[in-house]
């Protein structure tokens, strides 16, 4: 019912009734004014103080894992809501275990988590679902659309409330044996994990002076306070840094398109490398000539070893798209100066070319330590000083189909 149209009709009826002294029309129009007024007021406040919350057990995970979702809806006011429909846009890749729970949507691979509630005053209700992480990616849930109306069903009201929440599905990790790196570098037998250098830019404390200390290191203010010679202590810096450089191109010419399975395998391999690197005690970073969703620039993650570094890296890999932002060789040369000196560059590519070989040789000339892992069909030429590993993707497919 259109409010304005009914209002006009009722006003005309009222005027007509008044002019011609028809009690019935006056009574009828007044009564309808009251009824529609009550309905309008109810509709206006029906969605006030209504909250919709999603509680996830896990917000990130690997493909095949499950998590619990609890949807909680609360009516925090005196006015009851006889009907409330919630429509929450949801990606099928992280949808409920039972596919039929999601209502179909006009957007491919997306559904709508629909619920209907009836809430009395100050009532809260919850529903639980089991979600399944199916495919790598970062998926948004929400904002949710609330539909309600007055008690009598004259009018309806719709409201969208946020926030949008994100579920992340990491790339699957490959078995450790897949890489089979040689014993030298970067995950070899060398056991000196903490090859320490001191960073003179980062003092981290003071200690008493030893005869072998240089006078340049004396901390004079501390010496004055204590009355004894004190020297600065600098923060140790580990020399074991690894940066994974990923080439998201799956064909040598960008107009040839994308080979999705190969890209997924590349990303899985990158994820496996960063995981192993962190486990081995390396500071691991990541750069790629691909971009994340809703971005158009390549991304980089500085090497680190904090407890959250792995999740940062895997989240970035979860969000990588097939869009190539720059030619890989040029990208490498541009990014190389930003990579810490002494870091090992692990170049991961599905496409090899003479230009790439040239670039690698040039980087080697700048005293970069490089390991090159190729997924291309053709084996790589041997480049002196560079560790090359050839893991053709097609061979893997054949092996998998046989196995």
């Amino acid at each position: 019912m259109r409010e304005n149209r009914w209002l006009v009709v009722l006003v005309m009826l009222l005027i007509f009734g008044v002019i011609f002294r028809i009690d019935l029309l006056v009574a009828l129009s007044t009564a309808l004014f009251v009824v529609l007024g009550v309905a309008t007021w109810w509709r206006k406040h029906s969605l006030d103080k209504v909250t919709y919350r999603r509680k996830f057990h896990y917000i990130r995970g690997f493909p095949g894992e499950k998590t619990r979702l609890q949807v909680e809806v609360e009516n925090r006011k005196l006015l009851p809501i006889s009907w409330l429909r919630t429509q929450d846009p949801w990606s099928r890749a992280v949808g409920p275990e039972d596919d039929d729970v999601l209502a179909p949507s006009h957007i491919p691979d997306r559904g709508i988590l629909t619920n209907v509630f009836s809430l009395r005053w100050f009532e809260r209700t919850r529903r639980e679902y089991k979600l399944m992480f199916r495919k790598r990616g970062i998926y948004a849930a929400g904002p949710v659309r609330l539909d309600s109306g007055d008690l009598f069903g004259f009018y309806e009201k719709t409201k969208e409330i946020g926030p949008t929440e994100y579920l992340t599905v990491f790339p699957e990790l490959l078995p450790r044996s897949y890489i089979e790196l040689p014993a030298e570098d970067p995950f070899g037998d060398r056991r000196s994990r903490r090859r320490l250098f001191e960073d003179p830019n980062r003092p981290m404390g003071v200690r008493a002076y030893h005869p072998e200390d240089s006078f340049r290191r004396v901390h004079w203010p501390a010496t004055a306070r204590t009355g004894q010679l004190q020297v600065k202590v600098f923060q140790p810096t580990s020399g074991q840094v690894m940066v994974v450089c990923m080439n998201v191109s799956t064909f040598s010419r960008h107009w040839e398109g994308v080979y999705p399975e190969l890209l997924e395998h590349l990303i899985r391999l990158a994820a496996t490398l960063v995981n192993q690197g962190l486990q081995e005690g390396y500071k691991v970073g990541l750069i790629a000539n691909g971009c994340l969703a809703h971005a158009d620039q390549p991304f980089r993650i500085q090497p680190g070893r904090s407890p959250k570094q792995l999740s940062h890296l895997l989240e970035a890999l979860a969000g990588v798209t097939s869009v190539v932002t720059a030619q890989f060789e040029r990208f490498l040369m541009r990014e190389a100066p930003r990579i810490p000196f002494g870091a090992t560059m692990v170049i991961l590519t599905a496409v090899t070319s003479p230009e790439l070989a040239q670039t690698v040789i040039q980087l080697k000339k700048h005293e970069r330590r490089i390991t090159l892992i190729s997924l291309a069909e053709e084996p790589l030429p041997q480049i002196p000083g560079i560790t090359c590993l050839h893991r053709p993707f097609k061979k893997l497919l054949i092996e998998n189909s046989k196995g």
Partner: protein
Amino acid sequence: MIAEVARRLRENVQKVIVGKDDAINLALVAVLCEGHILLEDVPGIGKTTLARALAASLGCSFRRIQFTPDLLPSDVTGLSWFNQKAQEFEFRAGPVMSQVVLADEINRATPRTQSALLEAMQERQVTIDGVTHPLPRPFLVMATQNPVELEGTFPLPEAQIDRFLLRILIGYPSEAEEGQILERFRQADPLSELQSVTTPEEIQQLGSERQEVRVEVSLRDYIVRVARATRKNDEIQLGASPRATMALYQSSQAWAAIQGRDYVLPDDIKEMAPHVLTHRLMISPQAQLRGRQPSELIADIVASVSVPVEG
């Protein structure tokens, strides 16, 4: 008596701190238990102001220590220095010899300096050159931490974090509260005009009264079960220690007393559990990777342990 004093303290602190009833109440819990507080929050939220206001309201002395990488232990505890005029050693007390100490950015100092403060927190005395100097009573340390992702920080080890009774999150003020802050601090600084509403002696006496708050036997078991449940959870690598159990027990008593009761309810224990236990847990890397937060884990654990009730 405790409830009345708590109400006076709260009203007094609220002349400076707008809103934040929960944070103030938790600080009072720590005062009554003579425990220490860990404040983790974004800059500019009022951590220092809260500490100062609390100290002023309690009538206690207040010192602030800004922790830096080159801070020495003696800068915290004090040192003996040779007075050339008097030809004898004199003890110069460090800032820790105050009743309320605000240790700002404690994780920027070296582990050695951190230990100096933490030992003082635990033993309530400092020993310098063989001479023991007891710390004043009541003694409350409010420590703040920087986010650990930044370079140049030394995260407190779990054993040291365990010494803090409570972790308080102050949080951003609401829109209305932020407006009130602007109004309140428009012309005068209410902190400088704040008067005390109690005395250190009264606080100590209230601490003794707090110990008289009744904790029924089944509730004691409940506290133990909650603590033990944190050790059995697969998503927690390091659960709550017996010290945490004790902390939960004492803080529940204090909370009940602040509410005006002389007995503890299971709701008091549930109320205190997140603040007492969250900072002491170390969650497993797998759970952390999947985005689990310690506060969520505590909520799940508390929701799974049965409450001692008939029926």
